[in-house]
């Protein structure tokens, strides 16, 4: 170990990204490639009655226009294909913006122009687009990925009845879209019965599985390539229909085809955060000990699938409450399938952390103190002890840095001239996954190492952290280690979602690097030509690419020397399954509200986190600022508007679907407890990336209450709600 781990080393992929050299899915040059463009349905529910492609086909450059009439049958894959149906297999329309034709032409411009000429007629049926219009149809959906939608602990009904103090409120959040800056792109290249896809995918191994099922093709015949990803936030975790349709079309026309979604198409083609309503009932003692939580949520589902991506984990597990009843209901609407979106628990957590603030106000207890009184020192649902948990430190560190002790709890009491100042806080928490991951590490004859894994760089710093850990365990300089990701030709590794990458991949990386170091040391000490010949292997240390005898640094060999004499590469593999778990933190927010114009600004954010061991402070801090900014977007602006009559998205663009810009964000101060979690095989690091931001919407709402005395329970907190 040479102390690379933990350091904020600069990104190893930084240079490629600042020079424009990094190749994203739509940047690969493929000889002979055609361009596809999707025609999407303009009604939300009904049947296609007529489809006229003649004008499109007559346009110069157009090679084919495929529809349900000529597309070969595809099987409907299961998870992580979430739609429940494959479009263009029949005449049925399940949502607005569903593919009904796929135009292929020599250039993207020709394909798009031709797509505009495809004439489609429908027999339209009246759609239902909003939860409010179908709440009486709410039902408890069946298991999704083996997970139930109802959880019971103790007797929440009776405990609520008996509680000295109760809070009961409704909280709601609208449909939201991920909007990664990179649009989805898929390029299909067939060679006989083998398929290569250049894909914007958060999980290439998962994409391979979905494609294999849809085409009834062995996985060995499919290769997915995705070396760089322009963000995903869940939108590129599942495999979506454009990938399958485009591959089918490429096979039909016998040439490679690329399809790239337009920004507008990204509002119906690749999932979204569903609209939610949540009724929360808290019961507590006068001292503020929670005795009951009843959490009943209702999510938008579709008529073709029933996935609920709500993760009410925080109501179930965050606080030490003996009686909990969680029910995740759904309503079927005529909308596209929802899916995972960064920090899925935010919808649930926003309600819980707001309700706790309401309880604190009701009881006259400080909001931080209320959370400390309900702190769980063992998992409240399973009773299992935590392998490590430092949430209490997070409250203390962030509160002190924020200056929370100076807060006057009376709403409206803190002012700066005409401006009302509000301070609010919330707990942050995220449940991360762990996925069986494998890596291969080669130390080549030049003494340099290459690490290969079929995970991907979504932007969080995977190339960098893997390189850091491998270099550290090998005892090589960073520049001697190359990490190759984003190709299913490499060993299967984790999805870049659910904050699983570091937690899943770092264990096998460090194992492989240790094994490679030992293997090379063994070569050296057994080799009469090595200065280390005969030294016991355990007495050899590796540093900066050199191998030394401990205590006699004059006896020195190197990876380069050992491998050159060996004459062939040393190849090792690493394989691990880590356990999933939780990361925690606390966020404190200051807002400034000007009542004359009803303008609100988030002026200050202070956070502290317990993500286990921090492997790279720079990339970890990057996740904090990014996550907090997402929390600000969730709280103040993000809102996909759906027309209730047509069930169409009315703001499918970035000028009316607002995301935070540089002028909206404050600077974010952040701290890490930085203590290894002994339960994690990833050198004590837990999954972390989606933890920051989970508490931000509630913290902002709580700060607004503190500034104005007005309690908002429906995001986004737009100006009309503050007037």
């Amino acid at each position, binding site marked *: 170990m040479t102390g690379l781990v933990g350091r904020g080393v600069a990104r190893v992929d930084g240079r490629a990204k*600042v020079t424009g050299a990094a190749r994203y899915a739509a940047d690969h040059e493929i000889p002979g490639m055609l361009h596809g463009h999707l025609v999407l349905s303009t009604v939300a529910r009904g049947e296609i009655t007529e489809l006229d492609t003649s004008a499109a086909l007559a346009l110069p450059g157009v090679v084919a226009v495929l529809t349900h009439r000529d597309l070969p049958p595809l099987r409907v894959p299961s998870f992580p294909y979430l739609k429940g149906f494959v479009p263009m297999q029949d005449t049925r329309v399940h949502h607005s913006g569903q593919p009904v034709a796929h135009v292929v032409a020599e250039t993207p411009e020709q394909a798009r122009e031709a797509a505009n000429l495809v004439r489609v007629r429908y027999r339209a049926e009246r759609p239902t687009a909003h939860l409010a219009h179908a709440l009486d149809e709410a039902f408890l959906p069946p298991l999704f990925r083996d997970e139930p939608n109802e959880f019971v602990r103790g007797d929440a009904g009776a405990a609520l009845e008996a509680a000295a103090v109760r809070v009961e409120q409704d909280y709601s959040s609208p449909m939201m879209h991920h909007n990664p800056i990179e649009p989805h792109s898929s390029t299909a290249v067939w060679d006989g019965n083998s398929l290569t896809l250049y894909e914007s995918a958060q999980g290439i191994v998962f994409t391979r599985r979905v494609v294999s099922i849809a085409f009834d093709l062995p996985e060995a015949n499919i290769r997915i390539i995705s070396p760089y990803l322009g963000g995903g936030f869940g939108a590129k975790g599942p495999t979506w229909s454009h990938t399958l349709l485009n591959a089918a079309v490429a096979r039909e026309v016998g040439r490679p085809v690329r399809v790239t979604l337009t920004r507008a198409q990204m509002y119906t083609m690749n999932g979204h955060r569903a609209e939610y309503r949540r009724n929360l009932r808290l019961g507590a003692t006068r001292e503020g000990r929670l005795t009951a939580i009843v959490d009943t949520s209702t999510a938008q589902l579709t008529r073709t699938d029933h996935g609920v991506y709500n993760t009410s984990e925080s109501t179930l597990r965050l606080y030490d409450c003996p009686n909990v009843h969680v029910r995740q209901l759904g309503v079927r609407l005529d909308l596209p399938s929802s899916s995972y979106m960064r920090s899925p628990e935010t919808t649930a957590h926003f309600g819980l952390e707001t309700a706790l603030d309401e309880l604190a106000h009701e009881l006259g207890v400080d909001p931080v103190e209320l959370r400390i009184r309900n702190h769980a020192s063992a998992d409240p649902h399973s009773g299992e002890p935590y392998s490590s948990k430092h949430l209490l430190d997070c409250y203390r560190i962030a509160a002190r840095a924020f200056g929370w002790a100076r807060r006057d709890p009376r709403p409206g009491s803190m002012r700066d001239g005409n401006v009302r100042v509000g301070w609010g806080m919330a707990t942050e928490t995220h449940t991360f996954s762990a996925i069986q991951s494998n890596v291969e590490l080669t130390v080549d004859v030049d003494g340099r190492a290459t690490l290969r894994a079929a995970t991907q760089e979504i932007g969080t710093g995977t190339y960098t952290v893997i390189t850091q850990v491998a270099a550290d365990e090998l005892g090589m300089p960073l520049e001697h280690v190359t990490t190759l990701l984003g190709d299913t030709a490499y060993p299967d590794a984790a999805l870049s979602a659910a904050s699983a990458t570091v937690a899943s991949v770092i264990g096998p990386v460090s194992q492989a690097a240790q094994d490679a170091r030992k293997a090379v040391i063994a070569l050296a000490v057994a080799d009469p030509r090595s200065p280390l010949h005969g030294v016991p292997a355990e007495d050899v240390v590796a540093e900066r690419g050199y191998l030394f005898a401990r205590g006699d640094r004059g006896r020195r060999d190197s990876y380069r020397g050992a491998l050159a004499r060996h004459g062939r590469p040393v190849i090792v593999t690493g394989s691990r399954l880590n356990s999933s778990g939780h990361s925690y933190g606390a966020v404190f927010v200051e807002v400034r509200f000007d009542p004359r114009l009803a303008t609100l600004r988030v002026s200050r954010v202070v956070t502290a986190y317990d993500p286990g061991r921090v492997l790279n402070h720079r990339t970890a801090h990057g996740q904090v600022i990014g996550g907090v900014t997402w929390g600000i977007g969730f709280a103040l602006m993000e809102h996909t508007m759906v027309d209730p009559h047509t069930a169409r998205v009315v703001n499918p663009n*970035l000028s009316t679907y607002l995301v935070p810009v540089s002028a909206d964000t404050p600077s974010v101060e952040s701290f890490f407890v930085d203590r290894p979690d002994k339960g994690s095989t990833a050198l004590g690091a837990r999954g972390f990336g989606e933890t920051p931001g989970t508490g931000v919407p509630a913290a902002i709402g709580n700060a607004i209450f503190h500034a104005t005395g007005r309690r908002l329970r429906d995001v986004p907190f737009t100006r009309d709600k503050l007037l």
Partner: protein
Amino acid sequence: MRVTIEVNGERRTADDVWPGESLLYVLRERLGLPGAKNACEQGECGSCTVYLDDTPVCACLVAAGQAEGRSVRTVEGLAGGDGLDPVQEAFVATGAVQCGFCTPGLIVAAHELVHRDPGATDAEIREALAGNLCRCTGYEKILDAVRLAAAKKAGERA
């Protein structure tokens, strides 16, 4: 039609350009320069920002014909040769890059800001870059990068 543009110091010609094509399209699809990114095609995100003569523009909003006879500089041509421009260096050094998709556009926008107004205040930097969306970084490190590059520039002058 034929379009001739000086791109990153080199005279480049594209033939059979359809009048509706954007400069971004010509750069990416015809001239093999995929650095500038296509992310909205309607001037909302800034991912396609390039210099047209000395002005940063959304290349998706510029018709290819409008660039006829003018000079264009993309992220690929910002630094001469193999080196990095100080703005590019600053983006790497401060951690202003995550997924990197907004980066080519932001670097051109930041490059122009640093040269036009190296003394810009934080509020001015935030305002100046507000047309370049980034979904990953939360912008703070991008501000650090601009300040770092500006400081370096001021140092060169002194």
